[in-house]
């Protein structure tokens, strides 16, 4: 096999420009704004799609995106990264039970926002946890995502049965009190989440990059979404969360995400650092 030729800095620069043009085209035509996403991660996903679909340049792919909505939907699926699972990071849910739930029990009403909920596994995990803690009745769960396709799947709450083995294991390690199968019905090779878990869940599309505050939440979960954003966009989102949270409300991030770079660290107390649970400071009277 002939060795492939060298790739110069100029070639890479041209490719970077093509990527920016693609993201601009997507924004102008379809309204999805990926222009402030982490460039490294965007580039890898775009290049993956390019190779899979057999385009030779990003420009060629952009041409297709501009003319073919079906193709855009395929690309969108690559760009949003929807990987998720039930009780992902079981230790987090365990800590949530032990450190957040006791506080929530003192509230008459609980509003929880799942920002970037993907296909819904995270919401049903929380619904189950609240049910077991006797809190579901007074809770409202707001499940939002930028991607309408995943929201539709989240609403359905139907998952492949092969994933359930892992979920069952996660559930147990998360401190689950029953059996995960108590909350779902198996049908052929799928598992359907119980209808009763959905009664206090509201699904809505919401873009963290462009949309506004979602008011007076007691808890915000935004796990494994911010890693896809660049720092300025992260800062915008942290500001949005700060404004959407009630005083003393909780913010839960993915285990590799940090408030350190948010420019807003001082507004939060640390509840559990390794599992990324923070709490918005109570306003103190001026000393």
């Amino acid at each position: 096999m002939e060795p492939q030729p060298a790739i110069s800095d100029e070639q890479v620069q041209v490719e970077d420009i093509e990527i920016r043009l693609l993201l601009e085209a997507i924004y102008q035509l379809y309204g999805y704004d990926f222009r402030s996403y982490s460039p490294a991660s965007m580039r890898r996903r775009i290049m993956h799609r390019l190779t899979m679909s057999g385009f030779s340049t990003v420009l060629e792919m952009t041409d297709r995106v501009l003319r073919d909505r079906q193709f855009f939907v395929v690309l969108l699926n690559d760009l949003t990264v929807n990987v998720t699972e039930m009780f992902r990071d079981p230790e987090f849910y365990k800590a949530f039970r032990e450190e957040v739930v006791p506080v929530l029990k003192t509230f008459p009403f609980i509003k929880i926002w799942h920002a970037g909920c993907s296909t819904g596994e995270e919401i049903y995990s929380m619904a189950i946890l609240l049910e077991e803690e006797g809190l579901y009745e007074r809770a409202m769960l707001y499940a939002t995502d930028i991607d309408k396709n995943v929201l539709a799947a989240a609403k359905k709450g139907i998952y492949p049965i092969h994933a359930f083995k892992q979920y069952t294991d996660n559930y147990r390690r998360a401190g689950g009190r029953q059996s995960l199968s108590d909350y779902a019905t198996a049908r052929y090779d799928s598992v359907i989440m119980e209808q009763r878990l959905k009664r206090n869940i509201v699904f809505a599309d919401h873009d963290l990059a462009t949309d506004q505050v979602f008011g007076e939440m007691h808890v915000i979960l935004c796990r494994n979404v911010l890693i896809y954003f660049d720092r300025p966009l992260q800062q915008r989102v942290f500001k949005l969360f700060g404004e959407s949270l009630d005083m003393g409300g909780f913010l839960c991030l993915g285990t590799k995400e940090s408030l350190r770079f948010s420019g807003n660290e001082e507004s939060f107390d640390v509840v559990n650092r390794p599992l990324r649970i923070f709490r918005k400071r109570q306003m103190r009277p001026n000393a």
Partner: protein
Amino acid sequence: MPGAAPVKAVVMGASWGGLNAYSSVLASLPEGFPAAIMLVQHQNASTENRLAWLLARYSRLPVVAPEDKERIRPGHVYVAPPGYHMLVDVDETIALSMYRAVHFSRPSIDELFFSAGHVYGKGVIGVILTGANEDGSEGLDYIRRRGGLTLAQSPQSSEAPAMPEAAITKGSVREVLDLERIGPYLAEFLIGLRDEKTEHPGRR
């Protein structure tokens, strides 16, 4: 190599046998090693980054279990967290991602290598160590095409030879070295370069 771009990072990948190979390489790197080291080991997802703990015992350089957006600093060792791809971003920070597994692996070596080749160009060294699949050979070839130096552990010194063999067959590898030579080679190569620069300031 006068006139060469300074090497800013060494990126490494391994799967089967990786813990041994990494502890051997890291043990032979001196304090003050002038480049960042980033490594990927295939492993199952978990909240903890235990490999970073384990490797810290063998390394004179600080070993970091990185967070997203963390700045990449010379002389530090960054261990990809289980369950996430670790990438180099354009502002020389770490970008973590949960994009689909590559060669059934997350973290994947290819993901790290492609991003490092993109950002650093000639200023990166790619190293493929022992392992049982083909992850890394595409990414290593990209590093080669971008002008970076590419190394592989010799198959006969590898617990699992498939990974270095795949890279060698692809033609991505410039030097094949036995395991115990890799650390010393990197140290000589990088610190040699640095001495040359300080001895002849202003010379190209």
